[in-house]
């Protein structure tokens, strides 16, 4: 480093020489010379103070960098033989070994997701994971959301500087699924797929709101598919999903008309609370019903955009959140625990 000011330049040279000799290298930052340079600033004519001060700061930064790089070198551990199964001179009883499996856990969301997928596999659905970064076309355009449509306001999406989108729903995969499996229809087989994945909403966090959560999308297309098939499919899934709570009892379901641009008709779907048999409990906020998901018949424009003739084929789609299922199941009080990586939380789910 070249310093304009001669005094600083001389001090720099002096301190660099001293650095080599110092036992405790960090002491260089406490050098008297450095302090006296700072002390000199107020004695200078005002117009010189700025540039003088700047140079002292530069010198200080340079010394700090020296100390840091030295520390890195000093702390660097010796190389090891990365091809060996254990280190040199390690007695047999102190060699690497796994923790006992009673410490191990899978994430409760993933356990639940596997369970959900298992039921849908058995119901004849294949699965594919959703994307975590996508474009406007898949998130909105292919789903019959015109540019500037107010329905877009319901999705507080994260955007990247390039204009890419962190998907706010797993429906971002619908167009791909339709295109990918369109061949099924020609073979006389349905398109039946579930799409789990992470989705994102640009929201502030609290005990009930996460900006990152997980959804399972479902898509089913074939000839002659109607809205009753949709409701029956979801009901059947839920009856199985809650089979251990329900036993022989039959779940009730109900729908409320809703609006999504990508389905018509659209519904909000609720099930009778399996935990209290509609009597009212904490889980269902004493209403007897749990509003679980949005669903509907796939809009003809969405089918068409996926290369499927809506005159010939019809289909349905839904999306629900995994967090909600898990929170209800265990009575989890705060959604933020899921992404906290706290062992206090995770190790409860053996």
């Amino acid at each position, binding site marked *: 480093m070249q310093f304009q000011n001669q005094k600083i330049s001389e001090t720099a040279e002096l301190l660099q020489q001293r650095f080599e000799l110092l036992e405790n290298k960090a002491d260089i930052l406490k050098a008297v010379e450095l302090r006296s340079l700072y002390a000199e600033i107020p004695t200078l004519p005002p117009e010189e103070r700025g540039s003088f001060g700047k140079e002292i700061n530069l010198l200080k930064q340079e010394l700090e960098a020296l100390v840091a790089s030295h520390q890195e070198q000093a702390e660097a551990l010796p190389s090891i033989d990365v091809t060996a199964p254990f*280190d040199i001179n390690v007695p047999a009883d102190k060699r690497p070994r796994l923790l006992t499996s009673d410490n191990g856990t*899978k994430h409760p969301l993933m356990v639940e997701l596997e369970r959900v997928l298992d039921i849908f596999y058995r119901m004849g659905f294949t699965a594919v994971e959703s994307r975590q970064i996508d474009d406007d076309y898949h998130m909105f355009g292919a789903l019959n959301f015109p540019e500037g449509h107010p329905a877009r306001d319901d999705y507080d999406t994260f955007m990247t500087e390039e204009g890419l989108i*962190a998907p706010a729903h797993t429906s971002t995969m619908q167009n791909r699924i339709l295109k990918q499996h369109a061949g099924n229809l020609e073979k006389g087989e349905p398109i039946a797929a579930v799409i789990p994945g992470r989705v994102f909403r640009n929201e502030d966090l609290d005990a009930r709101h996460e900006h990152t959560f997980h959804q399972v999308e479902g898509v089913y297309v074939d000839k002659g598919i*109607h*809205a009753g098939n949709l409701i*029956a499919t979801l009901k059947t899934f839920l009856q199985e999903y809650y089979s251990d709570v329900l036993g022989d009892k039959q779940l009730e379901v109900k729908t409320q008309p809703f609006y999504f641009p990508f389905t018509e008709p659209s519904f909000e779907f609720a099930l009778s609370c399996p935990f209290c048999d509609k009597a009212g409990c904490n889980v269902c906020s004493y209403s007897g019903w749990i509003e679980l998901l949005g669903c509907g018949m796939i809009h003809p424009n969405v089918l068409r955009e996926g290369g499927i003739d809506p005159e010939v084929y019809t289909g349905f789609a839904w999306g629900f959140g995994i967090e909600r299922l898990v929170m209800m199941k265990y009575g989890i009080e705060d959604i933020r625990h899921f992404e906290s990586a*706290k062992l206090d939380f995770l190790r409860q789910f053996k």
Partner: protein
Amino acid sequence: MKISVNTIRDLNQQYGSAGDPAPEGVDKLVEKIGAQLGAVEEVIEIGKKYDGVVIAKVVSCEQHPNADRLHVCTIDDGGITPDVNRDENGLVQVVCGAPNVRAGVTVAWLPPGATVPSTYDSDPFVLEARELRGVVSNGMLASPKELAIGDSHEGLLLIDEDVEPGTMFADKYNLHGDTIIDMENKMFTHRPDCFGWLGVAREIAGIQGNSYKSPEWYRVDATVPAATSQELRVDVRNEIPELVPRFMALPIAGITVSPSPVWLQIELSKVGIRPINNIVDLTNYYMVLTGQPLHAYDYDKVLVQDEGADHATIVVRKPQAGERLELLNGKEIEPRSEAILIASVTKAIGLGGVMGGANTEVDANTKNIILECATFDMYSIRRTSMAHGLFSDAVTRFTKGQSPLQNKAVLAKITEDILAICNGQIAGEVIDDNHLSDEVMARNSLYPDVTVSADFVNARLGLKLSVEDMAQLLINAEFAVRIESENLTIRAPFWRTDIEIPEDIVEEIGRLYGFDKLPLELPKRTNKPASKDRPLESKAMIRDALSRAGANEVLTYSFVHGNLLDKVGQDASVAFKLSNALSPDLQYYRLSLTPNLLDKIHGNIKAGYDEVALFEIGKVHGKTEMDEGLPREMGRVGFVLAATPKVSEQKYAGAPYYQALKYLQQLLPGDEQLYTFRPLQDASFEGHVLFEQMTKPFEPNRSALVFSGSMLIGVVGEYRPAVQKALKLPKFCAGFELFLSYFEKAETAHEPYIPLPRFPKVTQDITLKVAAECTYQEVHNTMWELLGRREAEALLVTLAPLDIYQRPDDTAHKQITLRLTVASYERTLTDTEVGTLLDAAATAAHEQLGAERL
């Protein structure tokens, strides 16, 4: 969207539209609305608030003896209130502090025992007879605010009609037993008509199987009353008909601005709209009635905007650069360039469809007004509203796309009421700047007729309705339907903006019929098994393997703060940056999983966990990896273990690297010999930017690249001292990060099976002394070359590490002890035979590696 059940009932009756909206009670109605119209957010029993409020007449009003601002009144309640002290004339004494109290006025009295309506929902205040400065007051006389009608509390609510004293307030104003039903707006995104009470009343009738008839005045060919003078001239110049397809305006002269009639104030207050004055209240009333927002400009204020003008000019245009506008809410904005601006010749006077301007506001002195009833482009309104953060009832409605076919009916009807309530006269011809096509105007419907077959509808609903059933459902909601054999040809009523395609009719029929009545049957399917998704399956496999090995699966955010990237030495410029995150913690898409895992170690150790093994399966992204314009999604599995000094000293010796390696080998499928480890310090990344970023937290001389054959599959190792320090990691800390794609390949799924030899194994150990730099792998491979792969001789050979030792006095060398186990499939081997094998191997090791057998 809020409606009052009493109001709907009243409107249905007044206009002969339909019967009682809640013939089976409000609960049943709410249930029906939920099932067939949309989610109900809240049901408020507003009528209860007014139980006990009595309309009374102030008979006398005297100065309070002990307080300047109070009056002592006697009131006549028709003698209906029980248990209250009365004077000899049967009148009740009430002390009142309102400035407008005087003998002769009719007011709302809250007798002892009544609850103040405005406190009903929060902290109910029950009145009693008590002394005020020495004079007993039996309850109180109420202000609008206390009655929860607007927020004026400067004076009493004065009843403006002739009402018999003793009439219950709730009976007079149709509040008795009234319920407000608040429906979710989202359901009505495509239903602008349902942002008006008439629209909701129509739906309520329709879903109950009753037919609805709109009020006579609500018709597309309504007539605005003729002008009685031409004293106010208004010119309208619409420069942006593509954004403003219809702009109607009407000048009205000689109005009196005053508070609205009490009934009107109550109607608005019930649904949460604050009464302001009769003109503003009427525009709001017709907005909530029909969904059509209206605006009134003070004519004279418009006129003075343009110096020397002899008539008002309204220009509908886009704003000019730098133009500013002060809005009714006091906020001054520079309208965005794409906004719809309402202006005089020279000045902005309103933000079209969003909010009026302060400079032309109707106030108590306003005499002449221009009424505007216009249609604005929903997309433009939405963008303007978002850009300026302005949300009004008009915005809520215009952003759903109000039908431009209803403007005339609404303008005609409100004009009638303005003349009746605010006086005034029509002082110029109505202006109707109408850019709708002749076709639409001739059809009285926004879209061409839709024809559907009964089969089309039934197939999509799973029903077997007849064309007649379908037609009746639609006719109930005022659709025009023509039946031709099995086809229905449908013309939507003029207020519907959402009926364009056959599926729209399916939705309509399904909803009016009741989705709750659809047959529940599963789709028919074959018994062909659904194929499982390999990436998801491989994740499940990893999850099983690592959790079985005592590790804990975590999930962490896909987004990271720039500080974390800095701490681990990753290059933020490669990461996708979020441009709009509310939380400052979310800046970049993560480049690898390891930083997040490292970030979670310290907290868990502090929470009391001495030994921690975390793993995550997730995706990473980077700007350098694109596929057809989209970032490639790269699956990874990351693993980190850490132990406090206490535990690591007790349990382990040597570098933590080997502990991570142990986990890695537990996880990797197939034979251990498939995998090789090459020092990270020798790595060259040659443009593999994201892979390089993945290795950034790792210490180059204590980490390795992991290969399966020649395929690179990840990195394993310890972390750089700077990373350890920055993330407060214990010294005993190591981990790995691998590409998920490797696990998705089928051929790695299982280890080959080895048949069991029938003859006994022979075991012999060999110790080789080699140079310290010589790697274990070199020694092992050299020995294996010679000893392994003896299938031709029908031998099964294994070679396992037993010890690696370095004498303290000879750090130039190390000693590696391997255990050879040999079994034959054909015969019993002798020790000598195995010894011979080892001798040969030792000789080769000596020649190739300079190894000395000990």
